[in-house]
């Protein structure tokens, strides 16, 4: 799957969990989900589960713990596809 398509889908998944929509507009691969987008850690779990559903993949606890940035999410998905 193309990285661009993955990025678009990830952004769509992140949308409901981000406090300030403006932060998401300016987001890049280096954007930290917890600190820059101010998503709380439990919502990060929701995001991981939504990604599992959307891309039909399974993310282990250890892999989920590694996720910090949007780039990490994309690498995780692309790596499993």
């Amino acid at each position: 799957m193309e990285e661009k398509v993955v990025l678009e889908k990830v952004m769509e998944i992140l949308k409901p969990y981000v406090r300030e929509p403006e932060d998401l507009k300016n987001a890049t691969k280096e954007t930290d989900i917890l600190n820059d987008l101010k998503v709380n850690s439990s919502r990060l779990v929701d995001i991981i589960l939504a990604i599992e559903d959307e891309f039909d993949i399974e993310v282990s606890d250890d892999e989920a713990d590694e996720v910090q940035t949007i780039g990490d999410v994309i690498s995780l998905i692309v790596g499993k596809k």
Partner: protein
Amino acid sequence: MSQINAVNMDSTNVRRVPLIVGLNSCSEEILVSRKIIIKCTIQKWLSWLFFPILAPTIIFILKYVQKNRIQDQKTIRMLFKRIAAENKTPTLICSNHLTKLDSIYIQHAFASVPFYWRHFRLFSWNIPAKENFWTNPLSRLVTYLGKCIPIVRTGPSEHHKNVMDTFRYLLSRGELCTIFPEGGRSRTGTVDVDNVRYGVGSILRGLPDYRVICVYMRGENQQGISDLPRKRDKIYFDFKVITPQSFEKGRRAEREISRRIIQTIQEMENTYFTLRKNDSSHSWE
């Protein structure tokens, strides 16, 4: 049989010390370091030793300085004795959270000082935020002797995992533990279902058997969050025992269990507001 392994994580030679707990089946292995087990044991004994001095002092403040009273306290204590003392099923207390001293009010509502001293495992462990209660030596001492395991909210996931594992270990030993599923005091002044933390599900997941005492409490004039309930307020107190289960696995199970608990607390809140609405001149007797 549930097998809980104590792992000496500090040593390069990892040692596993099996601890056998009388529970029926094992869903997941709980790993705790021997250091944590020793720490908790020492903390519990010191808490028990100083309890006859510390607890009456705090109760005196609640009753005669704050002048707060728990509504229907006799009934609550009678029911709690029946429920909590009957067996050692891991029991987690989950409550809504509006004031900094909620956990103390919960303990005070459920039993008397002499009862806790005789059945000290029923005096529950807590996870207060370190930034709130670890501020000065006195506060540290009281927190430590109050069976608290401080957590750094913004700390690394490894730290959170250690605290959760410690709680699971304590629960499996028949110790009561209290947690606030919202993760902090509710900024909205009501149960914030959308803000539920899945830590509560994470603690319960893997325990072979458990039950949850859901608590809803609120001072009669409590609007939003505050450090303490208002002086002279009677505290409405309701609780319900549930055993939330999930057919899901992993994080999905944690999420489902956590949501079930917070929904139960929200239902209890709805009952509270319905009662208030139906009886605007509620006497709180």
